[in-house]
């Protein structure tokens, strides 16, 4: 099994709800708490597993804002795991989830150096590295309804921009979405083979903004009136 996320950049509205839901669930989860520094102060900061960045693609007038959620990619060749000197960082053989054992981490930051996606953040309060767990304490919890056994970010997304599933199963929703929508990986040249995939925005012709044709009678009347009235 190779569990991971598919993020549809075509429909993500950039509302940060996934990040909030992630923080809410994981603050009390297996790697919580997720410390906040100066939450109401001048320089609010803190540990988050999931961050949403916003990019502008293309140039005006053919530009587009693309909202870009990023969390741990749960890479197949996870360098964060191989560089870890204490064995705190590990990748589960049964489902490919990359985790940090909070009892073993010595806070050397080396795994965060090896991660190109910025998925790991040091918690200054505990001195240990924290990262997305793919809500491992939720997706296997048999006490909650089966349809809710999904990561918090996926459950909460109001635009359904996130999908969770097994990439090893060619018939799973995530595998099909990647196949049909040309899903891709970030920074493929580094060779980490991230499990998470991104679906590109659908191509749409630009909406014309010039040469919109002759103005109607009402418009011409207004223009004429405007010429008469000095402002």
């Amino acid at each position: 099994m190779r569990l991971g996320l598919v993020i549809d950049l075509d429909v993500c509205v950039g509302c940060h709800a996934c990040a909030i839901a992630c923080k809410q669930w994981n603050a009390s989860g297996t790697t919580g708490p997720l410390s906040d520094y100066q939450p109401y102060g001048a320089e609010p900061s803190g540990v988050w597993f999931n961050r949403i960045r916003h990019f502008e693609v293309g140039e005006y007038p053919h530009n587009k804002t693309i909202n870009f959620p990023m969390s741990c990619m749960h890479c197949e060749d996870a360098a964060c795991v191989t560089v870890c000197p204490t064995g705190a960082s590990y990748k589960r053989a049964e489902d490919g989830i990359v985790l940090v054992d909070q009892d073993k981490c010595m806070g050397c930051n080396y795994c965060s150096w090896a991660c190109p996606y910025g998925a790991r953040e040091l918690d200054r309060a505990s001195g240990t590295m924290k990262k997305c767990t793919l809500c491992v304490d939720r997706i296997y919890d048999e006490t909650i309804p089966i349809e809710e056994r999904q990561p918090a970010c996926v459950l909460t997304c109001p635009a359904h921009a996130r999908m969770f599933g097994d990439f090893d199963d060619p018939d799973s929703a995530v595998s099909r979405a990647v196949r049909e929508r040309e899903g891709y990986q970030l920074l493929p040249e580094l060779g980490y083979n991230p499990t998470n995939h991104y679906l590109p925005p659908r191509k749409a012709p630009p909406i014309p903004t010039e040469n919109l044709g002759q103005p109607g009678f009402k418009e011409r009347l207004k223009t004429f009136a405007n010429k008469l009235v000095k402002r």
Partner: protein
Amino acid sequence: MHPAFSVIFFTVASGAGFGLFALLYLADLLQLGGGLSRQQVSVGGAIALVLIIAGLLSSVGHLANPKNAWRAFSRWRTSWLSREGVFAVTFFPFAFGYVGLSFLDLGLEGLLLTLGALATLLAWVTVFSTSMIYACLKTIRQWNTPLVPANYLALGHYTGALILMLIANQGEVDRAPYYFLVLAFLVAAAFLKGLYYFWIGSPVAASTIHTATGFTRAQVKLFDAGHTHGTFLTQEFGFQIARRWALALRIFVFLAGFVIPFVWLVQAGPEVSGGAVVALIALLGVLAERWLFFAEARHVVNLYHGAQRC
């Protein structure tokens, strides 16, 4: 990258210590300049060990959770950081044996030289492992090069040779071979450092904002990083120094690290006096070099914080 002073001190101090130890042993083995006295070997070995231990203790300083530092020896099969720890620790029994037997002067030449040989091998492997901690990271192009281990080894031996020359000056040996050893390592280290600066000046096969986002058909720029203040990522990887500073520091690295020591040494000749001052100036240069090594490294994650290429 954020330059942590504890790590800078660690790599400079233990690099010099390991370099000094290896050269001390080789000088002892080859009876360089007529051979160092047993007393000189034990004093030099003690200085090397103090430098190495001070460096290793300092390296613990940057850990956020040092109570788990003992676990760092467990993943030597995959992690260069772990390997470095393991080799550094295995170095000590052999090194202590060599320095101790030199001090006691029991005349066990065979055992002495065997212990020294093993310790020297481990010293080299440890410095190499330290450099590979950085060189193995694909996320930082400026570090991911064989020039990094070459630089670490050359600078460690250069600074070690400077200290060895000071020790040789205190005894009856012929000073010339020690003097030329320093000059040789100085030239090699300066050449490799120059090569490194030349190499990081011209980007090759870099990751760009296009590969980072997958949008390869248009210009991409960061619109909003999504947080109101800095995060761990911007603090750890967003360290930026102005180009003007980098150039001034590079000039300082070459002046203090190589040019001033070179001019002083050449002008003074093998009967050099005031070698301690030269060594201190060179060490300052190497400290600046190590600071720049971190400060100039640009992590790929900066592509998600506004950089166009890394």
